[in-house]
């Protein structure tokens, strides 16, 4: 436990380095070090140009993207589980995933570019959560139960729209594109894509980190938090805006990657306890490491690419089942 901080820094960095030489195309770890050093200290090249392209243009952006998304989904999940006081809550509880999914399907139907798809999916994600929030608002407050139920309504609505989009999609080209997108993948990772998701994910994470002690207060229940002088509606608003920025950015670029935001916060609590002051930074690190590791498997385990969402669910669901059995549904 005492060594946790060092491990939590070293783990993602070590995995990041490993991700640069692991893959179907073999690159020696020494070459990776040379290539990275050459960026800082330009000098003689003794490796083929394609190797450098693979390491810097393909694997590095993809690895960084996996880390950003894993970290973002995990910190969002941890914050939401605190706000909703519920261990089964994930980042898509307010309908962001369903709305983004429909946005992406719409973009595919309209044959937009990958970048436009990302923007449309992001915008729909934000709009979906805004809709949930407005629906949940009663007497200038947003009770947790109302938020959850409104989230169910909005998610169901966008799921129906998504089914409609699939139904009218061309079964030869567009339907497979939509289906494949929904399975989740980091295949299309690029520096440009990375540049568009880093600002919302960093902004959202910083926002959550700033209020992380107040999340402990909110976890005591709205009324108690208010009696302690917490402006609960403000705080909930901040959390919802931050997590929605993060999740919408993540979904817009890699499709639906489930289970990360649900499972990683529990792993974090097992390691550092329930205090959000420690938990949120810990989930950033664990989430980044986890998704990076899974994505390394996704791209190198088989000759083809395994959709990321399949792997995260295949690993996440049994692990969550194990947690349930072990803890009997409590927070311990």
């Amino acid at each position: 436990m005492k060594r946790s901080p060092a491990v939590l820094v070293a783990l993602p960095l070590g995995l990041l380095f490993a991700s640069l030489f692991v893959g179907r195309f073999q690159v020696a770890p020494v070459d990776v070090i040379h290539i990275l050093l050459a960026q800082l200290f330009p000098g003689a090249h003794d490796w083929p140009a394609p190797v450098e392209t693979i390491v810097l243009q393909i694997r590095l952006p993809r690895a960084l993207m996996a880390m950003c998304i894993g970290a973002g989904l995990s910190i969002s999940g941890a914050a939401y589980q605190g706000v909703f006081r519920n261990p089964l809550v994930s980042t898509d509880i307010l309908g962001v995933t369903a709305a983004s999914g429909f946005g992406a399907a719409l973009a595919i139907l309209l044959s937009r570019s990958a970048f436009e798809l990302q923007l449309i999916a992001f915008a729909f994600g934000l709009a979906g959560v805004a809709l949930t929030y407005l629906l949940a608002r009663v007497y200038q407050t947003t009770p947790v139960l109302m938020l959850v139920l409104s989230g169910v309504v909005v998610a169901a609505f966008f799921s129906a729209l998504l089914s409609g989009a699939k139904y009218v999609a061309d079964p030869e080209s567009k339907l497979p594109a939509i289906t494949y997108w929904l399975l989740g993948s980091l295949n299309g990772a690029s520096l440009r894509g990375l540049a568009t998701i880093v600002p919302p994910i960093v902004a959202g994470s910083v926002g959550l980190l700033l209020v992380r002690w107040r999340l402990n207060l909110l976890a005591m229940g709205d009324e108690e938090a208010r009696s302690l002088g917490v402006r609960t509606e403000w705080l909930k608003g901040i959390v919802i805006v931050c997590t929605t920025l993060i999740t919408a950015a993540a979904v817009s670029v890699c499709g639906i990657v489930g289970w990360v935001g649900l499972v990683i916060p529990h792993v974090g609590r097992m390691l550092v306890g329930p205090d959000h002051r420690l938990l949120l930074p810990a989930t950033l690190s664990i989430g980044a490491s986890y998704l990076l590791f899974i994505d390394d498997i996704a791209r190198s385990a088989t000759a083809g690419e395994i959709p990321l969402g399949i792997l995260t669910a295949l690993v996440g669901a049994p692990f969550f089942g194990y947690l349930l059995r072990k803890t009997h549904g409590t927070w311990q």
Partner: protein
Amino acid sequence: MAVAAPIIRLCGVAFGYGERTVFSDIDLDVFPGEVLSILGCNGCGKTTLLRCISGALALDRGSVRLGETDIARMSARERARKIGFLFQQHTPSFPFPVLDVVSMGRAPHLGMFASPSAKDMVLAEQALERVGMHHLRDRPYTEVSGGERQLVLLARTLVQEPDVILLDEPTSHLDFRNQALSLRTIGALAAQGMTMIMTTHDPNHAFLFPGRVVLMKQGRFIGAGPASEVITDASLTATYGIDIAVVTVPRASGPGEYRLCSPWLPS
């Protein structure tokens, strides 16, 4: 009492949930250092009144003043520095350590992005000592008994450094021993001059504190004054709508006497 200015003053307070009026025209002065007990049946409006005094509910009419200030004009943060609230029920959350839970009471004194400093943690430890729960400081607060948790939450309220503490049924859900321990702690705080307003189911508890008693029925005060004068067979029978007898019993182990009330259950 008449000399000191009231610390809390309710003037013509009215509140209702939608169409249903809970109470109206409530006037009440609470003086510094007093323990005011509010007695009444379930649903008579005790808790709602307490929540109105805390500023959690917006009044339909009238005003609640804290010293010179109308609490409706105070921010949640300002109110939390002046008024502590001990809730009747607490749904356990994450297994936070007891000391961390107590330190949450520092929230109204800290900025939006701050967390408790070493000094705040010292205050939290002192508050735990005041309620006699310091030995639990590192235990998960979800694993201590109901009575211990109630005192831990009372310590959290003390850490707010409030002028007034509102206690909503502080002894409900507690066994006989834990009720007594809670009441003893409340009594010790009263002896230190803390102003408290407490709702209670049990009229016997009102005898334990030197302050006044208010009898509430269907949103109206039907009696107010010192416990020894207000709590009588007739007034309790009127409050609760059942036959109740108040008896005085000499204390076997020393000077003093108990006043007790008990319902009459016809066989």
